[in-house]
């Protein structure tokens, strides 16, 4: 917008890991009072860039300047004191400490005479900061009691308190409710008004378009395009990111749903979590579950799969009635569950692809006395790796942790495909993975459904739900608020259903 001098200027940034170049001379500028959207697929070099700016990594080559002066951070601490605040995707807060302690943990003010904390000073500054981020909580509240969105505001307050000149946001909205996202954007606007520059990394391109004044697209460690937002459209960004124009993002399915229900949920209820939830899913059908973060959609999935308890209701899979299921029973009944927490619940990160792939279907490889047939394990794992288009077929040698997020997600899917589930529950299957990998996930889902399985799909992206589902259920505060057939899909109506309480029932 303005022709002001850039706040942070990066030029010719290069970095290699083990002889593999991941950044080839990246340039971009961040201007005061503006947000720069940094977009690209996973592995395109975004994180490496901001890690260099944040002092976590050192560049092999390239120059950075901050406020016109050369800038070479030696450590995250050095970057922080130079005025760079880095708000990581996984928030750096300590649940066992209070809000005020978290705000000042690395520089708690000392008492004038004694080597003790000056509690009064801490309190006064904390109150002021909380006011700036519009968080109405006593500063002595333990952080463990805060929601994800509230925690993020604490991080921002911390950045303000450190007089940050540039704030880096890494995927700030993934775990926020819509309301919290709105509040975040308000605060971001306020930061801009103070002249603070921002780097905003996100896969949620809508958000990027909404927040950022400038956009830089990275692919394979190089800048593919950059400039004011007005020069970009969603389609252009995507085509730059993946290197080709994607015409149909959501592939068509050829086979319509059949009549037989695979899953029936009857009167499922749990105080404080879910109320009288009843629905069914038919063979060959994809049912989308739309709802805001915290609307109870993941909780519903976890209850169906037996991970969380419920107090009333029952679940019927095929002809099996599960009154009080455990995950094991759910799996035996033909369910599969891709959780939203890939690292924590989906994979054994230190284990090989093969060891992960067979985990849910061990019985298939067992002969008498539970002996496993390793040869069969290896061949079938390889077959599965091919089926989900994994980047490698070295299934025995490669550990899950060495793969990209998209490939890790494919392992989790492959693990469940090993069982040919009758019902596949997918909780945010494309979160944090790049556009290319998303396409592949969609393709796999379709193939599965065409073969007669049913899918319960949870996603924060309305587009994704609309693109994949045969039917969409909306959930608000643990209650179903609507059911929409494909013909009735409408972005605005759906948005309305997920953001409003159900109408009072007649009678």
């Amino acid at each position, binding site marked *: 917008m303005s022709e002001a001098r850039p706040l942070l200027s990066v030029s010719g940034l290069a970095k290699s*890991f*083990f002889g*593999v170049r*991941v950044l080839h001379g990246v340039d971009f500028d961040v201007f005061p009072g503006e947000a720069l959207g940094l977009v690209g697929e996973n*592995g395109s070099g975004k*994180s*490496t860039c901001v*890690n260099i700016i944040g002092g976590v990594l050192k560049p092999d080559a390239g120059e950075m300047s901050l406020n016109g002066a050369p800038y070479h951070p030696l450590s995250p601490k050095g970057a922080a004191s130079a005025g760079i605040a880095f708000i990581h995707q996984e928030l750096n807060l300590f649940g066992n400490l209070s809000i005020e302690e978290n705000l000042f943990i690395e520089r708690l003010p000392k008492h004038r005479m004694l080597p003790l904390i000056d509690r009064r000073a801490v309190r006064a500054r904390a109150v002021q900061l909380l006011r700036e981020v519009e968080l109405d909580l006593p500063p002595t509240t333990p952080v463990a009691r805060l929601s994800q969105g509230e925690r993020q505001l604490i991080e921002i307050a911390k950045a303000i308190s450190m007089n940050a000149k540039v704030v880096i946001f890494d995927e700030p909205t993934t775990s926020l409710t819509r309301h919290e996202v709105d509040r975040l954007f308000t605060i971001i606007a306020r930061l801009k008004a103070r002249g603070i520059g921002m780097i905003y990394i996100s896969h949620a391109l809508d958000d990027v378009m909404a927040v950022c004044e400038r956009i830089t697209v990275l692919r394979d460690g190089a800048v593919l395009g950059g400039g004011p937002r007005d020069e970009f459209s969603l389609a252009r960004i995507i085509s730059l990111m993946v290197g080709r124009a994607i015409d149909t993002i959501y592939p068509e399915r050829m086979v319509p749903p059949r009549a037989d229900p695979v899953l029936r949920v009857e009167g499922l209820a749990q105080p404080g979590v879910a109320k009288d939830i009843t629905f069914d899913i038919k063979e060959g059908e994809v049912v989308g579950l739309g709802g805001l973060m915290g609307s109870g959609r993941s909780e519903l999935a976890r209850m169906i*799969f037996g*991970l969380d308890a419920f107090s009333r209701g029952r679940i019927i899979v095929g002809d099996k009635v599960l009154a009080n299921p455990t*995950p*094991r029973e*759910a*799996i*035996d009944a033909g369910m599969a*569950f891709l*959780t939203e*927490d890939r690292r*924590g*619940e*989906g*994979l*054994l*990160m*230190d*284990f090989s692809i093969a*060891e992960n792939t*067979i*985990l*849910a279907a*061990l*019985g298939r*490889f*067992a002969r008498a*006395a*539970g*002996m*496993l047939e*390793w040869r069969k394990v290896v061949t079938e794992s390889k077959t599965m790796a091919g089926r989900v288009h994994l*980047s*490698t077929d*070295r299934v025995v*040698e*490669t*550990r899950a*942790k*060495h*793969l*990209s997020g998209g*490939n890790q997600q494919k392992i989790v899917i492959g*693990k469940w495909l090993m069982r040919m589930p009758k019902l596949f529950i997918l909780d945010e299957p494309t979160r944090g993975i790049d556009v290319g990998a998303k396409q592949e996930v969609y393709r796999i889902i379709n193939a599965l459904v065409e073969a007669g399985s049913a899918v319960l799909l949870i996603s924060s992206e309305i587009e994704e739900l609309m693109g994949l589902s045969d039917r969409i259920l909306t959930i608000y505060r643990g209650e179903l608020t609507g059911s929409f057939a494909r013909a009735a899909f409408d972005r605005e109506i759906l948005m309305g259903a997920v953001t409003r309480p159900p109408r009072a029932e007649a009678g």
Partner: protein
Amino acid sequence: MVPDAGRQARRGGFAGRLVRSEYFVLLLCALYALAAYPFVPVLFSAEVAGNMIADMSPLLIVAVGQTFVLVIAGIDLSITAVIALSAVVGASIMTQAGGYLPGNGGVLPAILAMLGVGGAVGLLNGLSVTRLNMPPFLVTLATRMFFAGLAIWYTTFHTTSSSIADLPPLFTGLYDFVVLTLPIGESVLTLPLLPVLIAVIVVIGAHVTLSRTMLGRWIYAVGANRRTARVSGIPVESTIILAFTICGVCAALTGILMSSRLQTGSPILGENVLLDVIGAVVIGGTSLFGGKGKIVWTLSGVLFLVLLDTTLKLLGASLFLIFIIKGAVILAAATLDTLRNRIFVEH
């Protein structure tokens, strides 16, 4: 940002692979034996070799049990109490001086009771960890104190002496009923075959279980990440309980071998083996944080420790020297393990 599969650094040729391989500790054993040879030439005599194999058996069995618990990210400190309690319970049943079923007829019930004691304590540990949500370290610390105390108390009901003797010949014969006697040159290899056979069976059984069976996959998965294991339909609680029970039964088996060897049920039997057992397993390379460990490693670790013990014994090293050297070896093994991981595998 981390480079994908196949790109992780692979340095060094044969030597590099050797250092990284699971036979590394075995190699260390061989090097150590060669280095010690000039000082204790008797080390390579058939007698000493026989003794070493015999000495290894009880330690090996209890260490194998411990491996299971460590792999599921637990730890079992109560093994020493299990050894002692099973010894006195078994002895109290079959002792010819006033046992419940004196004589050879009582041997089988006694052995079953001993294994039962081990299984029961293991089960209690496992249930406490899963059902009561207690950390394994503290559960087994408490059960160790309790059952060690119980073993001593129990003994007082059966004898005025400090231990229960007069065990039937069938039981004491377990240890040296079948002895292999094989003259090699001037020296004679004598080896009690039954205990060695039991140890071999336990080792092979455990190895096959961990590396080749479904249960093995369950155990590794639970140790590596309980939540993933649960979501994948693995019966996490049963697996944990089973691992503790296996550990208890192994300890009881060691109790059987030791009490048969000493022909006595002593309530302080095995009191000092805990650190040796954990030391051996860790020297082998099994992780205390779960998900990583192998029976072959444990075998090497036990071999190393017994080798060390034997040479120091033959050298007539004083107790304090033995303590210092053992501590240093454990530390060195841990250092080596982190260093070789750092240099050869990770970055």
